[in-house]
């Protein structure tokens, strides 16, 4: 466009030029808005589904809801582990006008410690303003009441309740129930490995010990979910949908609380363990290890001071002596050895030896002694059990040899886990040639075999193993695995019992052999020379049993040498195994008392008291003790 500059403007031409340009501009404007519209069409129509999904992903969150943990009852329906609301005091920062003032007024209301304040201040910084910050946990009922009364004066302060485990019988059942505590990193890793992390997404506590741990899956239940709408800060605006959790099953134990309490009461300050089972089912009526401790300490996180006190106590309260304590079984295994001797044929009912208190082997200078210095004189197998003659068993062990003993005793469960529903179990040790070679790189000497006859020489057993082996004898070879759990509590009030667990029975060739052994155990209690006859004098019921006294073994092998305590700690362990009533056995008892002295005078009376308690109020047909022992 070439134009000459003119003095007089051509207004029409300029107007036309502008109109043209304005039209072009309008076309461009329309085209560009068309581009915008096209882009919006692509977002809102073509990609709508994708953005709809992302929009929902933004606002809809699925939150896990923790199931309520199953409760634990004893066999009579007494609640042993409950879920109790614990109250904590929380502050929602955005709702509080003056935090300093609120804290000051709260402090005047209840004793808030410096530690709690410090923790609160630091938590306050890292939390979103609408999220509650915990100021004080485990409020007492009085504190809850005090605060509730003046709640209106504290805007933005609230009491939050959460269900937490509580064990009302405290240390009485710790070694049975165990406890739950907060899920830690290691628990989480295990849950991940088991593919259970989703199920525990909202769960606070997990079983750490005992029944709580062993039956964790049953007690925990299944997580539920709620679908919520959240805003950009994660604040829940409303609940859209709820898929409720399935609570854990309430379980019923074989435990009889009163019997358990009696065991605790009788043991008092004595270190040791008591196991009482229903002979015909293997159900554990009482399992008490002394000393014990309060499991509630662990539920809310035990203080390091309390924990190290438990950990470093010379009495080792954390160990479950009933299932983890490894003791020389001593004479309590003589009945088993006697049965083996009879079944194997190395001895007969009539075979007897002359016991003068000493036992020696050809070409061996070592002399093994009887617990009775001058010996028991002429001793057959029945008397060997009744008076607990050591010489007879030295001879028996010598004649059987370690291989037969080891194999047969393993069949009774020695050296192996019983399978009781506790993870805290030791397999103890049933020695053998192979074991000694592996353990000490030494051959098995004949001298090692002799004390095996009296349940010593590397042979260790846990109280639950002793119980299991005695039950096996009483059940004539049938083997019911000791079980603490009995069944599930149903809403109709009738417990849904769990089938009994058994393991491979022991084959008994001649039932008469077993009768000889059981009768001899009867004579231990009721015979003229029975080692437990004083302890069980004048019981209304008839029982049978075997005493044991083990030298110088304690549960702890790495214990420090402590001069002040050495005498007490070097005393013998007292043991007793027994069952009653003799005719129709209901219960078996194992008592192990550390450093208590002889089994007859220390362990047997404990067993007696527990049997008395168990049979209290029951009447029994009077029986002629003498005629029984004549058989």
């Amino acid at each position, binding site marked *: 466009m070439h134009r000459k500059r003119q003095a007089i403007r051509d207004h029409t031409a300029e107007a036309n030029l502008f109109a043209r340009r304005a039209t072009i501009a309008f076309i461009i404007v329309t085209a560009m808005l068309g581009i915008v519209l096209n882009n919006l069409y692509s977002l809102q129509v073509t990609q709508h589904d994708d953005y709809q999904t992302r929009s929902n992903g933004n606002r809809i969150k699925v939150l896990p809801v923790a199931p309520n943990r199953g409760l634990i009852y004893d066999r009579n329906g007494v609640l042993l582990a409950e879920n109790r609301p614990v109250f904590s005091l929380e502050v929602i920062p955005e709702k509080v006008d003056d935090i300093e003032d609120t804290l000051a007024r709260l402090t005047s209301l209840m004793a808030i410690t410096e530690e709690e304040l410090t923790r609160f201040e630091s938590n306050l910084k890292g939390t979103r303003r609408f999220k509650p910050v915990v100021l004080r946990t485990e409020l007492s009922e009085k504190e809850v009441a005090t605060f509730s009364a003046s709640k209106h004066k504290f805007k933005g302060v609230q009491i939050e309740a959460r269900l937490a485990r509580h064990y009302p019988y405290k240390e009485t059942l710790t070694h049975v129930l165990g406890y739950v505590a907060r899920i830690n990193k290691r628990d989480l890793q295990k849950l991940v490995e088991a593919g259970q992390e989703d199920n525990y997404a909202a769960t606070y506590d997990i079983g750490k010990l005992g029944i709580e741990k062993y039956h964790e899956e049953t007690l925990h239940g299944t997580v539920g979910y709620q679908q919520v709408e959240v*805003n950009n800060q994660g604040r829940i605006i409303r609940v859209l949908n709820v898929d409720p959790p399935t609570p854990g099953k309430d379980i019923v134990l074989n435990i009889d609380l009163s019997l358990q309490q009696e065991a605790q009461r009788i043991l008092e300050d004595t270190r040791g363990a008591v196991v009482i089972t229903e002979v015909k089912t293997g159900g554990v009526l009482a399992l008490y290890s002394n000393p014990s401790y309060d499991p509630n300490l662990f539920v809310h996180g035990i203080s390091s001071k309390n924990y190290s006190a438990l950990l470093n106590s010379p009495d080792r309260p954390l160990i479950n002596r009933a299932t983890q304590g490894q003791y020389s079984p001593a004479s309590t295994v003589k009945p088993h050895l006697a049965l083996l001797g009879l079944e194997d044929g190395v001895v007969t009912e009539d075979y007897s030896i002359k016991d003068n208190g000493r036992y020696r082997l050809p070409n061996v200078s070592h002399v093994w002694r009887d617990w009775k210095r001058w010996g028991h004189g002429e001793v057959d197998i029945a008397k060997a059990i009744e008076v607990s003659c050591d010489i007879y068993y030295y001879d028996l062990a010598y004649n059987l040899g370690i291989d037969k003993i080891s194999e047969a005793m393993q069949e009774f469960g020695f050296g192996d886990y019983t399978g009781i529903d506790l993870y805290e179990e030791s397999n103890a040790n049933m020695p053998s040639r192979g074991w000694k070679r592996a353990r000490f790189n030494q051959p098995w000497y004949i001298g090692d075999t002799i004390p095996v006859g009296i349940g010593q020489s590397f042979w260790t057993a846990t109280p639950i193993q002793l119980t299991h082996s005695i039950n096996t004898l009483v059940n004539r070879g049938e083997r019911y695995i000791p079980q603490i759990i009995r069944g599930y509590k149903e809403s109709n009030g009738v417990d849904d019992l769990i089938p009994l667990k058994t393991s491979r029975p022991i084959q008994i060739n001649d039932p008469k052999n077993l009768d000889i052994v059981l009768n001899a155990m009867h004579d231990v209690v009721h015979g003229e020379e029975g080692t437990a006859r004083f302890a069980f004098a004048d019981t209304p019921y008839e029982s049978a049993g075997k005493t044991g006294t083990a030298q110088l073994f304690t549960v702890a092998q790495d214990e420090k040498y402590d001069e002040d305590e050495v005498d007490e700690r070097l005393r013998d362990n007292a043991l007793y195994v027994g069952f009653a009533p003799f005719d129709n056995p209901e219960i078996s008892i194992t008592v192990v008392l550390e450093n208590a002295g002889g089994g007859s005078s220390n362990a047997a009376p404990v067993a007696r008291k527990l049997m008395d308690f168990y049979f209290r109020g029951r009447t029994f047909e009077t029986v002629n003790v003498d005629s029984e022992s004549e058989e």
Partner: protein
Amino acid sequence: MKRTAITPDKISFLQRVHIDGWLLLGLLVLSGVGLVTLYSASGQDMGQMQRQFTRLAVSFVVMAVLAQLPPGFYRRLSPIAFVGGLLMLVAVLLFGDMGKGAQRWLDLGFIRFQPSELMKLAVPMMVAWYISKFTLPPRTHHIALGFIMVVVPTVLIAKQPDLGTSLLIASSGVFAIFLAGMSWKLISLVGALVGAFAPIMWFFLMKDYQKQRVLTFLNPESDPLGSGYHIIQSQIAIGSGGVDGKGWLQGTQSQLEFLPERHTDFIFSVFSEEFGLTGVIVLLAIYLYIIMRGLIISSRAQDAFSKLLGGSITLTFFVYVFVNMGMVSGLLPVVGVPLPLVSYGGTSMVTLMAGFGILMSIATQKRLISR
């Protein structure tokens, strides 16, 4: 002013009070849509509603007052306003108040003032004044001088830094030159020059946060929780709105606050989420209607200054719309440009309506002059 006043048979009355009824209709409808959207976008905040309503009222009053002054007044005012504005821009760079990391405010003791807002009008006025002194189409050296009048304030404002405003001011001046009839040859040449200028801007004039915005625009998903968050959430809001929208007050992206700046720069995302593509088309039609009316008024203007200024004001209004919608939908990088008469906020709205006041003066005062 009652709504009943805006009827064709009353146009003569409107003419007397120097109001263009068709333009006013468009602006009122748009303001109404804006208030409805803001009610939702502010989270039903009545305080914000009240403040916005007050601003709108003030802006309409400013428009009505400015409409009373004849275009010749603005023509005579142009050089003074431009030079004054330029001095104030320099003053801002030297003594201005800091606000949100940018130096935009000038504190005159009794009032805090953004000179860049004044320049939004002063620049197109100056360019129109200068170019219209000569016959159209303008000669090359006039165009060159015109561009200098545009570039100087643009660079000063870009240095504050205020990329959005400098963009608006640059376009307003360029539109005046374009409408004056700058030859297509020259347009291509300038286009090439601007293309060459882009790298200089990138390396010497843009601040880091501005560069970051551009990078984020190019790939928002590279940092979805950081700088890309705004644009991603905005696209989710728009996209999830679909054809029919989620309904007024029902937009989850906006009501649950996933959308940042939802009542200011990103209010169009709220609108799109709640009213869908259908609503978007209606809103675009309203804007297009206002632009069309503005261009018609400009075309009918009697003198070149009025034509150029009116056209420039109208097209700058379009730039607001285009840049805002483009940036919230991911078409353009995020520069702080509000959606005119819909976004919450004061200063730019007053400037915008002042522009429409001048447009109404142009629309209604020509007959008085010709008489």
